[in-house]
């Protein structure tokens, strides 16, 4: 029994089920991120926790109390909206204390709560302004302040950073993380940005088509994606997914494929149980950072194998250089040190960290567990 329990929750509009049997249990102080592409049901799920959407079947409980059908204001939650949803006719201070006022909290207490939160978020000088006079980042802070003032059991964030420009978004991301570490609050956070999901969360639920595809820590999601969707969705640039055939060479399973020039290529597979797949096709997933220049390879890995291939495009990104090459007939990306000497059209010797490679069953699209 967790702090916030979502058990067997479904949502249907008429005959179409948009959320299918979602089970998530969130511990107190946890930062759960719901991530997925548009229309995957993550915002619907958040709204169901908030009480803004009805629950078709299943239970949502907060602190052991089932809150199905309980009015949003009586669930002891606070929500930060994508558009911030600040009341335009009220000052920042009035915006932040509106909820307390509606809950009948006496004015001296409201003022104290307001002063505390404003100091925490460093927005004290803004309290008498109207939302229209604030910048995007300031509005974002006020919206968070409005949630914090209530001191709720659960914070709900609905894509709070998607309206900010790139630089401010990174700053606010850090700020939210700091705030969470300081206050140890329970947060459910919806985003479609997988970097936000990776950096902020203690656990991630990757959603797609109304299903929770995988629920786990950021490291689990990143290193051992449960299926092809999660593998492709998480990570930027995304994981190279290569259709290969498994063959036994010298008693060890190898992936047989072709390089840029069409010549056969044998990559030694780390997972021994893949020998059962000999003669069949699998999809081999290799993260770009697992294909590097030899100097940049992970020294702790027990399975670094060399591979010579022709580079088609290089993209220096400052901190790294990305090299695109053809592997198994499709464009694949390698992530090299910034000063790796590689140019387009050249042959280059890469080092592949096969320990990090994952294999998927092409039929079920699920990961083949070692």
């Amino acid at each position: 029994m967790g702090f916030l329990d979502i058990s067997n929750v479904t949502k249907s509009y008429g005959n179409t089920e948009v959320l299918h049997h979602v089970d998530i249990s969130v511990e107190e102080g946890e930062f759960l991120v719901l991530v997925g592409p548009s229309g995957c049901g993550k915002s619907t799920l958040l709204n169901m926790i908030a009480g803004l959407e009805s629950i078709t079947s299943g239970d949502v409980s907060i602190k052991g109390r089932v809150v199905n059908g309980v009015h949003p204001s009586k669930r002891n939650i606070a929500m930060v909206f994508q558009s911030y949803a600040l009341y335009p006719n009220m000052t920042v201070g009035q915006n932040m204390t509106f909820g307390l006022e509606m809950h009948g909290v006496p004015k001296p207490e409201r003022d104290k709560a307001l002063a505390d939160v404003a100091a925490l978020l460093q927005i004290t000088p803004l309290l008498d302004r109207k939302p229209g006079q604030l910048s995007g980042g300031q509005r974002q802070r006020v919206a968070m302040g409005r949630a914090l003032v209530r001191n709720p059991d659960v914070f709900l964030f609905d894509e709070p950073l998607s309206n900010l420009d790139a630089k401010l978004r990174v700053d606010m991301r850090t700020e939210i993380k700091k705030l969470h570490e300081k206050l140890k609050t329970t947060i459910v956070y919806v985003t479609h940005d997988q970097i936000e999901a990776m950096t902020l969360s203690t656990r991630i639920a990757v959603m797609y088509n109304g299903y929770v595809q995988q629920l786990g820590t950021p490291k689990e999601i990143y290193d051992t994606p449960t299926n092809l969707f999660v593998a492709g969705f998480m990570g930027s640039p995304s994981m190279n997914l290569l259709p290969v055939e498994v063959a036994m060479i010298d008693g060890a399973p190898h992936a047989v494929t072709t390089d840029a020039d069409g010549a056969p290529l044998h990559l030694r597979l780390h997972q021994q149980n893949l020998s059962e797949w000999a003669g069949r096709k699998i999809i081999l997933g290799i993260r770009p950072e697992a294909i590097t220049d030899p100097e940049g390879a992970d020294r702790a890995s027990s399975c670094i194998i060399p591979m010579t291939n022709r580079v088609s495009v290089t993209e220096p990104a400052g901190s790294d250089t990305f090299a695109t090459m053809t592997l198994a007939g499709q464009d694949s990306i390698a992530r090299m040190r910034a000063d790796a000497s590689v140019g387009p059209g050249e042959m280059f010797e890469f080092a592949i960290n096969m320990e990090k490679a994952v294999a998927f069953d092409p039929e079920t699209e699920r990961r083949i567990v070692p």
Partner: protein
Amino acid sequence: MSAATQETAIRTGRIARTFIYVVLLVFALFYLLPFFVMLVNSVKPLSEITEGNMMALPKELTFAPWASAWSTAQIGVEPTGLRPYFLNSLFMVVPAVLICTALGALNGYVLTKWRFRGDTLLFGLMLFSCFIPFQIVLIPMARMLGIMGLAGSTAGLVLVHVVYGIGFSTLYFRNYYSAFPTELVRAAMIDGAGFFQIFWRIMVPVSGPITVVCVIWLFTNIWNDFLFGASFASGSKAPMTVALNNLVQSSTGVKEYNVHFAGAILAALPTLLVYIVAGRYFVRGLMAGSVKG
């Protein structure tokens, strides 16, 4: 910036602009001509008008026609002037506009933020009421007012105008509120505000422009209405428009054109005043929501 290009740019602009302003001025003057005739003839003695020159400025300035129109002129059979009927109109238009605007705002709020099954259909039916000609409802309405005991009273007229105006006021507020972000309502719900608290604390404070539009529209229509006034409130309860008609149509004695002109201006004054005071919001309100920001 070179002097030559600046010069030509300004010169061509100036010629075109002068032309445009002259044309506009002519149109404006032409448009104001009837009002000029009314104003000028309302401050002339009757003898000057009967001499035949309607356009001439008064040789002798007199405000007697105004005083007469207001307080002593013969309206029907009573020599009361327009004053009691002006008050009748005021007692009709103010409650009707207030009730109608309030109900329209409430309807708009419900139709956009508390959607229910069939709400679009309901709104469509309400819109339909905007397009029903007045004449069609005269007899059923008279029967209804009779049943309710409101026939021939100002309260009855208020009811008729509220019923008729509610379609328009709902249309205005619904369209205005549909551009209002629903997330704000959701945030207020989570904050614990109830149905009327959200309406009163969140929606109403931002409804200024559309309220002005709605009030101007309703005020003008209700104040200027003749048909309902003549049908449902004749005699001492008649509104200004009906009284003005009675003043002008009196069949006895000489036609006092100067008094008629003064009376007509008096009848038009309140709507004129509403436009002057709130007019700039009118355009702003009509535009509101069309462009975000």
